[in-house]
């Protein structure tokens, strides 16, 4: 039994940390203020090989394990959550469905640019009236004359409106009780990318609503088997949950790192605030949560990399996501408190951390959904 990542993972972690601290941290406050995703950084992340980690070499990837991706997301997330989610969504939601279900032609067409960070792909699942209840999807796709015609709307779609977005994988109703996934290339007539959302956090991350108004794509743009859409996105979300969990671990670790430093530097009544039990013990609790969250996350990643049953991975992913994201939200609350008045100021990263945290308990399955998944995993007939 071992509780260590491999030496390769640790070497890679160091590089991603250097990159995050060197290329992201100095500019992140400004990007956040401007609500701007810096595409040159996306490209640099491509050069680092981050988008292609889990992609086979034939499509330009590194054929690495899922754990490596979690390491990268954690380290980016430690510095900035928006950049972390940009990677997570680009791989987990953008690349992964095409890689898993795509034909050779689809893979060859889209993957090489996605792997290098020259393009981003998005996954259009959530709808204005179908979030956790994704089965209630209303977007329709009808097949006629060798073309799919899509009508409907999607909500909160990450990476869907950047200048380099190349394709959006859309779930749509293709029959009475049938959901399928269809590839809609960016700039297809009838695809309307709504203006970016005004969000509480994740300001750097690109998020749009989409609408489809007689949007036509070739029949060959069907991804995988017709009618398998529901099954496909459930599998996609299981992987995504582990990755979101890694993002949350990064945030909690980031909170611990900056608050520990601040607690040593900031003096009140002639002593560093870290000498006060109120501060020190709060940070001890954060340290415990970080450790527990990290273990749950990497255990789930390890189960996936070891090819364990999907039921086992699903349960571990839900447990990790639930615990890590709630721990991260709690950690931002502590960090902001440790920083006192400064914690409320955008001048310090903890204010951004605080704003960015909440969505972790919502995206890729809310905490409530995770509890439902876990309860079902326990064999409870929860509805």
């Amino acid at each position, binding site marked *: 039994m071992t509780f260590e990542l491999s030496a*390769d993972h640790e*070497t890679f972690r160091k590089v991603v940390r250097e990159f995050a601290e060197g290329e992201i941290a100095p500019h992140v406050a400004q990007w956040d203020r401007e609500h701007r995703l810096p595409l040159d950084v996306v490209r640099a992340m491509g050069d*680092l090989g981050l988008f292609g980690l889990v992609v086979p070499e034939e499509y330009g990837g590194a054929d690495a394990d899922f754990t490596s991706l979690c390491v990268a997301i954690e380290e980016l997330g430690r510095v900035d959550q928006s950049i972390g989610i940009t990677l997570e969504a680009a791989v987990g939601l953008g690349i992964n469905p095409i890689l898993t279900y795509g034909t050779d032609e689809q893979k060859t067409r889209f993957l090489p640019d996605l792997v290098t960070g020259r393009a981003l792909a998005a996954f259009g699942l959530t709808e204005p009236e179908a979030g956790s209840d994704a089965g209630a999807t209303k977007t329709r796709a009808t097949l006629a004359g060798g073309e799919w015609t899509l009508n409907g709307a999607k909500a909160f779609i990450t990476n869907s409106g950047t200048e380099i977005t190349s394709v959006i994988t859309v779930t749509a109703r293709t029959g009475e009780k049938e959901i399928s996934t269809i590839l809609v290339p960016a700039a297809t007539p009838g695809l309307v990318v709504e203006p970016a959302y005004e969000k509480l956090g994740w300001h750097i991350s690109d998020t749009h609503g989409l609408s489809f108004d007689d949007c036509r794509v070739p029949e060959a743009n069907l991804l995988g088997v017709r009618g398998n859409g529901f099954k496909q996105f459930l599998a996609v979300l299981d992987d995504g949950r582990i990755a979101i969990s890694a993002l949350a671990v990064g945030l909690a670790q980031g909170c611990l790192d900056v608050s520990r430093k601040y607690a040593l530097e900031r003096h009140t009544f002639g002593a560093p605030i870290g000498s006060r039990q109120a501060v020190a013990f709060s940070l001890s609790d954060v340290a415990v949560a970080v450790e527990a969250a990290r273990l749950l996350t990497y255990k789930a990643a390890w189960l996936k990399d070891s090819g364990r049953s999907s039921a086992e991975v699903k349960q571990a992913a839900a447990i990790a996501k639930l615990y890590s994201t709630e721990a991260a939200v709690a950690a931002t609350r502590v960090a902001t408190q440790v920083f006192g008045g400064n914690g409320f100021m955008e001048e310090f990263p903890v204010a951004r951390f605080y704003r960015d945290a909440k969505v972790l308990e919502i995206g890729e399955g809310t905490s409530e959904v995770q509890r439902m998944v876990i309860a079902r995993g326990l064999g409870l007939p929860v509805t």
Partner: protein
Amino acid sequence: MNIVVLVKQVPDTEAQRQLNPDDNTVDRAAVDPVINYIDEFAIEEGLLLKEAHGGEVTILTVGPERATESIRKALSMGADKAIHVTDEALHGSDAIQTAKVIAKALGTIEWDVAVAGSEATDSRSAILPALLAEALGVAQLTQARKVTVDGSTVTIERVTDTGYESVQGSTPAVISVVEKINDPRYPSFKGIMAAKSKPVTTLALSDLGIDAGEAGLANAWTQVVSFENAPPRAAGQTVKDEGNGGGQIADYLASKKLI
């Protein structure tokens, strides 16, 4: 073109560095080792030269066994192979002795340019590239902020206090580069994996025909006689603006020869 990049492993610049009180040498165990910061620019310049002119980039490091970590990092950035000179007898060697060791190590391979960082963040003597060029009797092109190679002619922009000088020499040449000459790349994931199987030749002093009596602290040409920790930072000087604040600041800067 065969490019050699000289890489030194130093104690982490951002940590509290110290000397061993026993022999006044750098305490390497106390602080995590890293690649000398400026050497990362030398590695990048080597890689850029290779991309422009072809050939191979060889990393050359003199240092303890643990320096392999820095060598692997340089290889993961894209260098092709490495030579690691390591020997217990090297402990405490000064710049002059190290330059001689590097000169001998360069004698074991074919090379056209040897690129170094302009100084190391631990000793900061900034003299090794010059010593090396002297020891080898080759062109010495130091403090470069730009390097151009045309056939066997190397031209650099040498940074001076007031601007730069254009300096030219022919290969083989020793070049030292200043930071900001380029933007060092980060190792990619594939680079890290590939580095594991790149060849690293380990050489001892005996392999280079150097007598242990020429190396090490006891035989060094320079000696650290004593040292003390830097004094704690003194309180700053407050300039009170009574209508003449600008003039006072200008006087202060002038007294430091900054303006």
